[in-house]
């Protein structure tokens, strides 16, 4: 209590017991409930991350010798950035993850705007969650046959005479692209929908009565209010897509156009048995993602970030 005139009965601060003083600072027995979560984070996230970070600076002697490293601790990084086969995995992963994320977001926005007005949202939501629960491997497996030269997709197109030879959609860039769209879209959509429905419908009505056409209402009202949420959606979707692994191997060409960075780390760890190198690649991957996150969050700061309701009630 810090009132100006304490009542005589009120105990002075130094009379209070330790536990009472701690609880006044927000520390009491209930605080102990965070301990399991903290231990969990330490054991499964902080420690492995710190260990990997440390390991990435402990290159194998062969690596140091191979790259003639001036600073031996950085040999793994030097090796990664001196070998196009390795460092090009960054651009290859970007080439998949960025278009997929942007496409998913561009698809999610108009669909979310339509779904917002529907009464049976829950049914649609359930249908959309299915690809998430199936997991990437099952989707990749299914697409492999569906999009393959003898699959339904090509056979249908050939039957109706749209194409004369099967379109190659597996074991290349497009296979990975399509599988990421399918597994990533529900996530992007559900997040976008929650942001879109969070905007007070009265704002749109107000804009309409003031003479704003649908496109103007979107540009002037919805978009500025959605940008912060869309930035977060973009980041979460992008990070997911950037970590693509199973579909890049199963549906792509892991030796060529879809040799993504996570596959490079996998090869270093489980084909070359060079854990230090694999750790270095994982750290590079993390840094690249972090750079994207920082850029997007910085850009988000340029927009209005307050509440998206138009007043009280």
């Amino acid at each position, binding site marked *: 209590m810090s009132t100006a005139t304490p009542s005589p009965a009120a105990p002075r601060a130094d009379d209070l017991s330790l536990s009472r003083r701690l609880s006044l600072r927000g520390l009491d027995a209930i605080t102990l409930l965070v301990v399991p979560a903290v231990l969990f984070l330490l054991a499964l996230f902080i420690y492995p991350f710190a260990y990997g970070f440390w390991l990435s600076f402990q290159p194998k002697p062969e690596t140091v010798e191979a790259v003639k490293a001036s600073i031996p601790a950085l040999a793994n990084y030097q090796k990664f950035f001196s070998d196009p086969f390795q460092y090009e995995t960054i651009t290859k992963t970007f080439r998949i993850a960025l278009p997929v994320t942007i496409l998913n977001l561009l698809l999610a926005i108009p669909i979310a705007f339509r779904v917002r007005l529907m009464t049976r949202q829950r049914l649609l939501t359930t249908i959309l969650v299915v690809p998430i629960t199936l997991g990437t491997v099952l989707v990749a497996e299914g697409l492999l046959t569906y999009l393959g030269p003898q699959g339904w997709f090509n056979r249908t197109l050939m039957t109706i005479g749209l194409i004369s030879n099967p379109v190659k959609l597996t074991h290349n860039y497009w296979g990975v692209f399509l599988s990421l769209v399918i597994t990533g879209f529900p996530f992007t959509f559900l997040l976008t929908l929650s942001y879109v429905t969070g905007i007070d419908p009265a704002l749109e009505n*107000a804009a*309409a*009565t*003031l003479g704003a056409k649908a496109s103007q209402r979107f540009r*002037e009202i919805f978009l500025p209010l959605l940008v912060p949420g869309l930035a977060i959606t973009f980041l979460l979707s992008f990070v997911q897509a950037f970590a693509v692994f199973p579909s890049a191997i199963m549906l792509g060409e892991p030796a060529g156009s879809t040799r993504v960075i996570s596959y490079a780390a996998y090869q270093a760890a489980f084909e070359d048995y060079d854990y230090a190198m694999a750790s270095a690649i994982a750290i590079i991957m993390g840094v690249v993602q972090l750079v994207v996150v920082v850029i997007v969050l910085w850009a988000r700061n340029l927009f209005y970030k*307050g509440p998206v*309701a138009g*007043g*009280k*009630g």
Partner: protein
Amino acid sequence: MKALNDVNLEIPRGEFVALLGPSGCGKSTALNCIAGLLDVTAGAILLDDKRIDLLRPEERGFGMVFQNYALFPHMTVRKNVGFGLKMRGVGSAEADKRSDEALRLVRLESQAAKLPGQLSGGQQQRVAIARAIVVEPPLVLMDEPLSNLDAKLRLEMRAEIRRIHQSLGSTTIYVTHDQDEALSLADRIVVMRDGQIRQVGTPEDLYIRPAHLDVAEFMGFRNRVPGKIVAREGDGKAGALVTVQIGDSMVKATLREPIAGESAVLAVRPDDLEPAAAGVPATVETMEYRGKEFVGTAKGPSGSELVFRSHTRLANGTAVHLAAEPSRALVYSGMAA
């Protein structure tokens, strides 16, 4: 299920019309139909003899004030007010000038650069009003604009709305469930119930001569006692005097609608019911001090509760006779089905 049924209303230019009714009576539905936010399934809406019910809201060009203000949270107050002008292609310098004029009218010129979230509820509602009127619309629509404000602010804003209407003379449709608001603001009041218009009239009309019992109830006729018509004078139309038997006492009252049989309901406002030498016998139950006078409740014939006013404090249990002017005691056939 229809939200509105057989609603016909003509509003002359410059009039302030209040749609009054309990929640769910269709008053907001009517307003949203006029604004174009809801489609009418049948019927037509005309503005200066041009049909507008097929136009989109943005093509109608009305100004609307929403119950929750609906200010754009990411725009400054000035930009909020200027939004309608911008949409009409008015240049930004001209738009800012006119926005500032509108803000001066609602006395918020000093807040122009703030975001709506930084303003109080009453200020936000004034911004919403400025935003609606700055485009000089042929019609201003207000949907319970004061219901989110506290009682004191509501009174202030009421005067403000009246003042703005007087200085601009814009045709206004005002939706409310508060009869005080409607009575004090409107040139004409439309009382609605169950999607139908029950009565249209000036505030005085509605206050003194409600056409139906439900309108009377809404207009503050809190005393409604069943009785029997025992004598009629004149032609038996609305306005004729009748004698109604309440318990054992006879009360002179005014007929407000033709009644075929003898059973009727007598309605009196607490303000018009006073202790008198002769009248309906009742026993005082509570007295409330109201400054100028007292408001009491009393048990009347067959257990009915009567609310009356008195210049003196009466002890609980006092036997009184309550009476009202025959012109202020209204007789109805009963509640509409």
